[in-house]
């Protein structure tokens, strides 16, 4: 009798343990690490190394600078931190390609890997208006997001919550733009314009 009690007791304990393992333990053990980097390149505990983009000394290209930013669990939050750092005034002699006073209103990420970056109107009102400068503004933002968050393939810039044709009359913002390192110094992606399909030499 006493022995039976022991068996029943052991079975009950095993059942309770099994239930605990199934309902509590397993989910707990198999919870993924809080998105270790949201795709960030390098991590160092609480910090991540990211690349931000500023105007070169000669004004003719963007240059990438490494910055340590606080690591965030949620990709959208990480994107926000990166963008706020990119929008902030950099220490001299770095020159920001984004007009002073531009603030991040919001950033949205989609499952397709698109990011929508909503900026305040200073990004257009404070702009010098040159097409090269506009390319720098747009691609500093696009590249800051896509380079540091590889899960994001393309970025569409919004101004005051609305889609815009362009910031100041040149670069088409009617669609998400992919990472483009053409205007970034010493980057291996820098390439000559794609070859043309013409066989004939120029006649003059």
């Amino acid at each position, binding site marked *: 009798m006493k022995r039976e009690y022991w068996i029943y007791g052991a079975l009950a304990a095993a059942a309770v343990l099994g239930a605990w393992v199934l309902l509590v333990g397993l989910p707990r053990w198999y919870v993924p690490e809080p998105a270790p980097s949201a795709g960030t390149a390098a991590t160092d505990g609480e910090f991540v190394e990211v690349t931000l983009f500023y*105007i*070169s*000394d*000669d*004004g*003719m290209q963007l240059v990438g600078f490494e910055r340590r930013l606080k690591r965030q669990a949620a990709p959208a939050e990480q994107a926000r931190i990166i963008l706020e750092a990119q929008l902030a005034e950099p220490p001299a002699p770095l*020159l920001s*390609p984004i007009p002073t006073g531009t603030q991040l209103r919001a950033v949205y990420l989609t499952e397709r890997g698109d990011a929508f970056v909503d900026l305040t109107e200073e990004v257009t009102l404070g702009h*010098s*208006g*040159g*097409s*090269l*400068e506009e*390319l720098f503004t747009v691609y500093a933002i696009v590249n800051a997001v896509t380079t540091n968050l590889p899960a994001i393939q393309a970025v569409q810039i919004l101004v005051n919550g609305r889609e815009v*044709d*362009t910031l100041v*009359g*040149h*670069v*088409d*913002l*009617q*669609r998400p*733009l*992919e990472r*483009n390192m*053409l205007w970034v110094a010493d980057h291996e992606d820098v390439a000559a*314009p*794609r070859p*043309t*399909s*013409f066989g*004939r030499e*120029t*006649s*003059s």
Partner: protein
Amino acid sequence: MSDTYIPIGTMTRRLALAACLLLVAPGSGRSQTPDAPLTLISSAGRRLLPAVAFDGRRMIDLRELAAPFGLTIADAQQPGRLTVSRGEQVIVLTADEGLVSVAGRLVSLPSPPLERAGIWYVPLDFIGRALALVHDQSVELRRRSGLVVVGDIRVPQVVARYQRTGPQARLRLMITPATEHVIELEPDRLVITFESDALDLVLPDIAPDDLVTGLRSAGTRPALTVDLGAAFGAYTATNEPAIGGGGELVLDLRPTEATSTRVVPPAAPPPPEAGADADLPALSELAPPRTIRAIAIDPGHGGDDTGTRGPNGTLEKEVTLDVARRLRNAIESQLGLRIVLTRTADATVALDERAAIANNNRADLFISLHTNASLRESATGAEVFYLSLDEYDEEAHTASVFTGQPIPVVGGGSRVLDIVPWELAQLRHVDQSARWAEIVADELGLRLPMSPRGLQQAPFRVLVGANMPAVLVEMGFISNPDQEAQLTSTTFQAAIVNGLLRSIVRYRDDVAGGVPAPGQAAAVPAERSDAPQGQRP
């Protein structure tokens, strides 16, 4: 103290008096200066009509019009009002009032009639707008040449353009409507006589050179005289039909063999636009094209959108319009192509509308003009862009769904059409755009400082919808003070225009396979000592 008060008080009174006079002045004291007279041409012959200018506005004494137009000017019945009659028809004028009653109809004049000491002056447009309504023959005012043409007489308009290109020269005459003419070569001149009653001749101011020393009207004959310089050897005449029933006579003038082989310095200081002529394409390249007929020029920005601004205040929208106008004139006069400007004034035009204007006018090439800016003052140089494909690849892949769409047509049935979505219009032309952009960068590079990356691709909105090869040219950095000064200078703008002109010629030859255009040219060699000889081309 009192010594100082009195003069100031006196001065104040004088100033007040002067101010009163100034206030009274507009009614009575507008400056009146004699102006170039008009020429009235009718079946009765020619007659001069003296004109005067009030504050720059060209007016005519109404009494001068009375005799030639058979007008009766009534004595003033009410002050400030005048009645003019022709037979039963009556015109009522009111001083300083832009509306005139003409045979019961109200006609608006660009400026009001003026009454000065009992004499009435009317703006020149009074002739075409008011007199024409009460006259029994046609009355036409041609402001450009200062002609008033009355009745059914033939007065073709002849607009001359003279272009010196190295040792050769080209004289183009745009004749509207097309009119028969005879060219006679005399020892020192070419005389082109038109079969008409008179000529409405619009002549440019040319600097005399060794081929042509002047262009002038041949007195009362309906003829144009081209005074020839010492180096003139022979000419070629070509007749071509022009748009709108007009005709075009092109005279290519060549030096004698002896002078053509050596470099002849210009006989006179070059005209202000000389920079524009320095390196023009050779005449053989200026023949009408086979494949390129129209070019859309897009002066960047405009209206509220000023574009970039230089450190000395130069605005991008002004530079782009300046260069666009120069380019238009150069292409029209030297290549004879139709030009479509996406804006002709300081107006706001949306980016997609610019491409639409080019598409709707069936332009064969699209060129958007801009000036660049950088936060770094040191940035300089021109850049040529064409559309990058990467941003649009996804749409390009799915674009096949748009081909072969059956579209219902009026009257029933349907037609199968390929529909090109706006976003994809340029994609079909990107290879050609790349080819042209390469040539543009090459030609500009020969004449202007280029940025380290003179040829680039970018997703520029204005290029997206252009349904033709399209490029965007950043002519220089307006943010650099030196380049700002260059961008506004005639020489620099002329260099840009020449580079673009040359790129069009090269691209055209490229796509047309370098086939020379059909011409009806007939060379007419001539010795300077020859007796006068006439040629009917």
